[in-house]
């Protein structure tokens, strides 16, 4: 059973982030890491490899040349090999173009499970997994706190309004998992050293039979303005008061705002 984990390299959380003058996300010169939510997908895939459910784990990423760093870091955690799809035409690709490229690469890799994390850290949207499933005409099992594969079928444990359900679909599937999978493992030193020797292939759009013109060019949405959020009134503080007095002050504050 073969798993391909799709990962994305993103700017580190908390690093200074900005929009460029032409209102695109400025990714230059910022420390890049594996999208933290993808680490849970990596961890889930490696657990399935550890317990013998999966006999091959491949990482797939679409991005600039630098994204190979994220793939090496993933390989250091475990897994067998990696593929980077990179092409100048893909700079600034939107979710649809990303999904199109990943779908084509996944069709070529033909895994039983295409596994992804929840949403990218730097541009919320999370439409890529579902779009990929629709494009490939493959079932989608999303928002799983756990993924299990057996007997030609995959299932995810998904929170319901009150408890949880196991949702199942026949292989092959696209699946996404949440952080409830559990803490991702650290890469060991031997893992880091082995990662350098694991195969990492680079594919271009041509290798996927995709037309650069179709994918690049104007995005379907245009940002017309980017501004800081509304200035907030400075934080009021209550400290060094006995609890009863503090409570009275809080209640006054709430009452003044008609909250009680």
């Amino acid at each position: 059973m073969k798993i391909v984990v799709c990962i994305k390299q993103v700017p580190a959380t908390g690093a200074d982030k900005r929009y460029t003058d032409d209102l695109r996300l400025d990714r230059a010169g910022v420390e890049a890491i594996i999208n933290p939510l993808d680490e849970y997908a990596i961890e889930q895939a490696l657990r399935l490899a550890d317990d013998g459910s999966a006999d091959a784990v491949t990482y797939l990423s679409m991005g600039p040349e630098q994204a190979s760093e994220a793939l090496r870091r993933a390989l250091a955690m475990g897994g067998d090999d990696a593929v980077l799809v990179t092409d100048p035409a893909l700079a600034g690709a939107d979710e649809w173009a990303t999904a199109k490229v990943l779908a084509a690469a996944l069709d070529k890799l033909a895994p039983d499970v295409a596994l992804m994390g929840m949403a990218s850290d730097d541009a919320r949207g999370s439409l890529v997994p579902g779009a990929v499933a629709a494009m490939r005409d493959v079932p989608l099992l999303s928002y799983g706190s756990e993924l299990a594969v057996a007997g030609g079928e995959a299932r995810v444990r998904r929170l319901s309004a009150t408890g949880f359900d196991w949702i199942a679909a026949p292989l092959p599937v696209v699946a996404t998992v949440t952080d409830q999978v559990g803490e991702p493992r650290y890469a060991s030193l031997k893992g880091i050293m082995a990662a350098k020797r694991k195969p990492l292939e680079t594919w271009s759009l041509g290798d996927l039979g995709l037309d650069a013109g179709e994918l690049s060019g104007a995005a379907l949405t245009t940002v017309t303005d980017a501004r800081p959020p509304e200035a907030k009134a400075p934080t009021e503080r209550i400290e060094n008061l006995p609890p009863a007095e503090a409570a009275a002050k809080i209640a006054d504050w709430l009452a003044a705002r008609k909250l009680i």
Partner: protein
Amino acid sequence: MSNDILFLAEFAGGNPARSALELATGAAELASQSGGSAVALAYGSGAASGAAGLGAHGAARAIVLGDEDRPAITYAGSLVAAVREAQALAVLAPATPNGRDLAAALVGTLHVPAFGPVRAARVVDGVLETEQATLQGSVITTARPSDGAPAPSVVLVLANTFTPAEGGAGSADVSQAPAAAGSALSRASVAESHPAEAKVVNLEEATVIVAGGRGVGGEEGFGPLRDLAAALGGAVGASRAAADAGWIPYQLQIGQTGKVVKPALYIGAGISGAIQHRVGMQTAEHVVAINRDPDAPIGEFADLFVVGDLFQIVPALTEEIRRRKGHEGA
């Protein structure tokens, strides 16, 4: 292309989800700006009988995709067919797991513009305009479909962006969705169902939330928070640390990987305010934080920051609120 605004209306257990009512109101608002109608895309158990009732919240028409209790994603095929036929200006979807899945299927199949999750949407001179908080809330971007982009635009909408309109009298015209091409997305099914015994409040619907974090220290520590929530008529939520520790169910986790909430009042007790939690509640109208660490990050974006022991302050506050409400009642 028409000026209609479509919206996803999820039904479960015979009733519309709150998101359905919010989006009905929102779609009606946008439709009045665009000169079109608000049209529901109803699915789930109770959709067939309940779709007409969406008229009371602003829907002029309703298309029923299906009435069975099955995973939302399995309705993608009929959704795509209905959206293709409708040729509308926009489709509103809730920024929930189900809403995102269906929105993704639309974008993947139809290659249309996608926005969201948005905190505001409007139609200006016939063009959709959205507002979104990006880069973890540090930048607000305004966006619209590019010139020449195909319709409809798919818009993910955060909970509490629209408030359901009360007391409308209309009834929506109900029709069936067109026949759908077979889609692999329909091949998911519930293999096992494990409902919990107690009903868990949907935090996205709460107007007051009292949330607890690592500082609460344990399951019992949530007792005083529940009392305060009850006194305020609100719900209890938590940070991921509390959920991971098993002190409360995951359905109550607020944050990047949990629920995104927009209550009128959020009180965070024993929560440090790390960014992963912050992105789940920073759009609350009023934020009160109680923490014994005077340097806790939450103190930087709270409206009111109370430094002290939550186990003393929270009960005292509950007492004070009950006292004041008691006086009002008398």
